[in-house]
């Protein structure tokens, strides 16, 4: 197999194979936590930690996990890491932990983590899996932060309590509520696909 370099893998996960807007994985938390930038940042750090270390751990154990129970084994490893994140947040950031509510726990069923464990960690050595998990996490993080910026700015007129749009701005309340998340992500996908599609069409003739 012509192996791609680790660096190529890293870039792919940020761009052409981005988990959020190309593979449409992990959408649940993408939408749920992105109404406040600060919470989003914490959630992203948690997810980066979980994807990279779960990938590394599963990859270390990949020859010992029996194929029949591999899903179970993967879920258990991921759940352990998520518990670490949850306890850490409860201890050091209790407010954010309360606001995020169940979504920290839901990292377990986040499809990005499972998807990369299945597709990469089971067949690749630990370091490469770690790089893959890390880059998938970062690819997820920057999309989320972009969406959160738009939503919080339009929904509350500022970022993290600092007003940026001036006193004349009327808060666009729908943006921080459920429908806003759907629309912003849809527009984001539209823009990105529009940019990605153009070169592909030219190449196709």
């Amino acid at each position: 197999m012509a192996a791609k370099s680790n660096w190529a893998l890293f870039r792919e996960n940020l761009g052409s194979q981005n988990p959020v807007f190309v593979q449409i994985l992990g959408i649940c938390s993408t939408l749920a936590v992105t109404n406040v930038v600060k919470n989003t940042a914490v959630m992203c750090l948690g997810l980066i930690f979980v994807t990279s270390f779960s990938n590394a751990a599963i990859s270390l154990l990949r020859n010992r996990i029996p194929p029949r129970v591999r899903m179970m084994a993967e879920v258990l490893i991921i759940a352990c890491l998520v518990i670490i994140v949850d306890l850490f947040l409860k201890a050091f950031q209790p407010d954010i932990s309360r606001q995020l509510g169940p979504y920290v726990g839901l990292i377990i069923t986040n499809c990005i983590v499972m998807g990369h464990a299945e597709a990469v960690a089971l067949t690749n050595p630990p370091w490469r899996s770690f790089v893959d998990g890390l880059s998938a996490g970062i690819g997820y993080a920057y999309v989320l932060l972009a969406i959160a910026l738009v939503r919080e700015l339009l929904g509350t007129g500022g970022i993290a309590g600092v007003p940026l749009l001036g006193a004349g701005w009327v808060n666009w309340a729908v943006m921080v509520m459920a429908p806003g998340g759907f629309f912003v992500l849809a527009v984001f996908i539209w823009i990105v696909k529009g940019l990605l599609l153009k070169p592909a069409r030219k190449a196709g003739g």
Partner: protein
Amino acid sequence: MQPLGFFAILFAAVFTNNILLTNYLGMCSFLGCSRELKTSAGLGAAVVFVTATTSVLNWAVYAYVLAPLGLDYLRFIVFIVVIAAFTQLVEMIIERVSEALYQSLGLFLPLIAVNCAILGASLFLVIRNYTFWHACGYGIGSGVGWALAILAMAGIRQRLQQRARVPRGLEGPGIALVIAGTMALAFMGFNGMVSLN
């Protein structure tokens, strides 16, 4: 706040606090399996069944085992194991009992083990300190709400395929998200009838 009854919670979970449209849970399978009415009906039925039963099971495990022993922090692992084991068990039973039911429901069960709506429902129960009947109402309601949303979505998408010209960049998941957003707006019309939290 007045304590809500069983039916109030059931109603709230289906309409005002729909687990998919207000909490965004279960989006992956919602977007992936909502192209055809038939598939989404099967998946919806399976989700109703599994959410209702596992949330009650998890509630019992939490209230009688984890909370008294102070093992609160283990709940993620325990819940996911209960859900996975339960779906596996049901799949095996259905396979033995009825071939037809297996064809319509059983195929979706493995998919469901990693559906965040189900784990999410169990986690919400614990955070909101529900009693047994509330847990029942919430479990059933969440499942029904999810099924309702995916059925509506599949119906709209089928129509859309026949009639509408979608811009190229929005094809597939993009347009599905726009529809979901519109549905969420519509469901906001139920706001204020009952409120959870």
